[in-house]
């Protein structure tokens, strides 16, 4: 392994400050993507800035819906009963991701910022209307350089107790966050603070289905998430407020807006679901790769869209039955 320096900032300010000051630096959270890239010799930054020790980044809070810090591990999310019950698609994603060992350290922030088209947490966040809270360096102020840095020592914690925040915060919709394979809107020096997910309201259920070759330790051949709010219309269940998202069928995870529009206001009969699946498939543009053939992925969009919607409806109707 090529040599690098490793920093452990304790606050967001420190992390941003270090990123501004250090040459050839990269953020690292759980390390399950970054260290793999290192080992594959695809990257070799001289400095790694760890986000693991920043308290502000690791919380999961039920307020105004749901707040998940970027440093929350997949394990943390999996064990969270509130998420399991109310944001089930996210539970589906993290519980099938990697292995126990990976889930214990890998973070939702890492999964999203790595922005692989196959990122398991992306489709659930897309259907849950997540907003990404981004923090980054200010471009006006230049904080004074502490003398310890001049001495060549690692940057100490600073701004302790003070309220000064030498960073700015803004939000984007998760849908606007992804630009392409491994590409996001994050600019140099920025990092994701966390995800704000609105409360979904009653009669809403969500699901994520990951299509894999084996039952564990697998990337998805493709994945589909759905979220549906059900309205009872006499005997029928009408689908209001539908969201459908698909992964590995485009350069980035995408919403199937055509299928969503089609489904809205309709009863989820077999024929309707079949058509929704066909529309979603027409919105998908999967490629051939050694991991899966394009024609098969397109076919599976049809099947998984149907199944994800049905599962979401099941959960909307019977919210206790989740796992």
């Amino acid at each position: 392994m090529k040599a690098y320096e490793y920093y452990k900032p304790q606050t967001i300010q420190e992390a941003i400050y270090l990123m501004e000051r250090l040459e050839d630096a990269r953020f690292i959270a759980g390390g399950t993507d970054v260290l793999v890239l290192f080992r594959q010799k695809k990257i070799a930054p001289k400095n790694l800035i760890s986000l693991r020790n920043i308290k502000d980044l690791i919380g999961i809070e039920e307020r105004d819906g749901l707040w998940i810090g970027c440093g929350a591990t997949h394990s943390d999310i999996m064990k969270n009963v509130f998420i399991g019950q109310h944001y089930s698609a996210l539970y589906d994603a993290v519980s099938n991701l990697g292995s126990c060992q990976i889930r214990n350290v890998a973070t939702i922030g890492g999964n999203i910022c790595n922005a692989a088209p196959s990122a398991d947490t992306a489709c659930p966040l897309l259907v849950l209307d997540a907003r990404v809270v981004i923090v980054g360096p200010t471009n006006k102020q230049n904080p004074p350089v502490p003398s310890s840095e001049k001495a060549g020592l690692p940057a100490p914690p600073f701004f302790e107790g003070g309220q000064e925040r030498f960073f700015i915060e803004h939000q984007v919709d998760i849908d606007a966050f992804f630009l392409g394979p491994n590409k996001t809107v994050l600019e140099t020096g920025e990092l994701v603070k966390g995800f704000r997910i609105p409360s979904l309201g009653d009669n809403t259920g969500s699901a994520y289905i990951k299509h894999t070759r084996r039952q564990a330790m697998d990337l998805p051949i493709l994945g589909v998430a759905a979220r549906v709010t059900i309205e009872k219309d006499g005997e029928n269940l009408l689908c209001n407020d539908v969201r459908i998202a698909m992964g590995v069928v485009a350069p980035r995870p995408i919403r199937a807006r055509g299928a969503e529009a089609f489904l809205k206001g309709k009863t989820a009969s077999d024929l309707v679901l079949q058509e929704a699946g066909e529309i979603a498939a027409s919105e998908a543009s999967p490629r051939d790769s050694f991991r899966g053939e394009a024609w098969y992925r397109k076919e599976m969009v049809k099947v998984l869209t149907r199944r994800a919607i049905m599962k979401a409806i099941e959960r909307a109707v019977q919210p206790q039955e989740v796992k």
Partner: protein
Amino acid sequence: MDTLSTVGQRIPKLDAPSKVTGNALYIQDLKIPGMLYGKILYSRYPHAKILKIDTSRAEKLAGVKAVLTGSDIPVFKFGVMKDNPPLKTGKVCSVRDELAAVAASAPEIAEEALTLIDVEYEEIPGIFDPIEAMKEGAPLIHEEMKSNVLKLPWKLVCGDVEAAKTESAYIVEDTFSTQWVTHCCLGTSGCIASFDTNNNLTMYSNTQIPSLAQKDYIEALASFGLKNKRVRIIQCTIGGGFGSKLDTYAYEYLAILLAMKAHKPVKIVFSREEEFFATSPRQCTVTRISQGCDKEGRLTFREMDMILDNGAYTSWGATTPSVMMMPISSLYKVPNIKFTAKCVYTNNTYSQAMRGYGNPQATFAIESSIDQLALTAGIDPSDFRLKNANEPGEITPQRFKITSCGMKECIDAVVKKLDWQSKQGKHDGRGVGMASLIHVGGGARVYKSDGCGTTIKIDDYGKIDVFTGATDIGQGSETVIAQIVAEVLGVTVDDVHVTNNDTDACPWDVGAHASRTTFVAGNSALGAAKKIKAQILEIAAKNLGADPATLDIKKGIIFSTIDNEKNTALGKVLRNAHYVSNGQMLMAEYFYDPANENFDREFKGNLSVSYAYGAHGVEVEVDKQTGQVKILKYIAAHDVGKAINPMLLEGQIYGGGLMGIGYAMGEKMIFDKGVLKNGSFLDYKMPTAKDVPPVEAVIIETDDKDGPFGAKGIGEPGLVPTAPAIANAIYDAVGIRIKDLPITPEKVLKALKEKEKSLL
């Protein structure tokens, strides 16, 4: 028959304690003082001329102690066709080709040195399809060979197939293909080469063939200018074999050459990437098969023709046809056989031994075709198999002498446990399928010797040391041998210590292959134990004033079977024999070479002393929308002769079975113009714990007259019939037949859609 006290017991593996504590030392864990680390530079292209290799920058890197290219080493080629030099010169024929090797004081330095070696290539168009390679005018992979088709004699003819065709009521014909899969040993390949001041070599190794490797290295040393040197092989704890360590590899010769140049021990250990692309996988095959039967469903003929992609160099993959002949000629009673196989050079990777050694590939074709034939003849596939089942006393067309044979019992077990009668033929998305197997169970005379030696010594207290040539690759041969010896000598396994990992101390053995260890090494240990028992009883007889024939040993006591008063402790007898003038310490040796035969020129002869049989049955459910196949139930019935250790035996059945399921359903090395694309555990779909279906092992004991305590081999049979059993079950479930492995959801869905279309 006496009740047995250790044989037949579920005794935990003797080496398990050192493994569960992390104390067992694998090659990865071993360090020798002064040791250097070796790394290998591989080719960038699958087919190219080597114009120039410049190692000057690498040699200057601090910490680098030796750099070698093909022009620095004596002319030497290894491999079964002697076509493989450890470092290539002139041209490269695959991306596995080794171009240079470096030894340095740290692995990171050796790796960096590789990046400083400059190679100039001139690319040549590559051939990646054996059919292309066989065409007129195709570029030659090895110019000196004059043809891309290897000169190998793979042809077996028994009876008259053409005549049999005219007498058949039903005939089926089809083509089946199997893929490259790899062993995925959790412990990667590696060795340490270390010379003493007299240039005698010690190899720390995880080889499965210590005696043969020793011979290979002695010959290599002679080629390298070191004639008449000793070679000692010390086997570390082996992190998995499955056939991957059945041949000697370039990296071993490179470790030796680097050690020679640097005058220091050199360790080479493969990274996981290297383990994937630079070790030799299971032989892939394309098989045309035709089988026929009469009106009653009795098989009349079997005709098979195979094309094997030999890759760039030749290892054991090219010899798999010799083992494939076994199921081809002897799985079920088939009077007329014709088999030919061609091995063709290409610029792909090259294959060697992998658990089953050709049998799984051939059985996939045969057993899929048997189902096709049975259904064409309107006969239930299980009945068809029973009708044609092998029987004890049979002599097959290849002149195998079948002694013990539990094939029918295995098929019956599968039928019963799968509830075959009520589940078969429903075609409603769920189905059942089965397949049988034959494999060698009593050694296999593939070399001139199939022997294994054992020496035993016993100390003053009745503690026994057994030195066996047999290698334990994790299957538990050490434990089985201890059980056999303990049984004969009336002690517990705690009193028996087995040494099996040092050619300086251990006798010759041809290797851990062909599922032969329990049978051959077991018989060898049995013979030595009986000899030493005779010595003990002779001495005891004098002490007790009894006839040795009336004495026995149990629980460390030598006693008379006819006089209760006459008994003495084993230790006492031994000490009395030792601590006198003209004293003696007891030792015995026994080299057991089974009475099997080498093939004659027609590939006929009794390859093994006895044969193992089995049948696997599986119930599947096919998701018609996704093409995914779920295994609802898996039955693995095996005729093992005698289960010396039922717990270890079950371990082989479960392990083999899951490896077979991986072979059938998910594993495939994906190459693109000779380059491996999925050389990682992420993308090579080896089964995980969550992929284990409900599985039941059924052990059938037919008590083989030649096996130690009646036992036969089990190491390989576990994965021979899995693929056809699953393919047959899928056909029963949804009426489609996948003929090329692995059976993926894509293939199933495609076939289902084509079937739908054809029905419209």
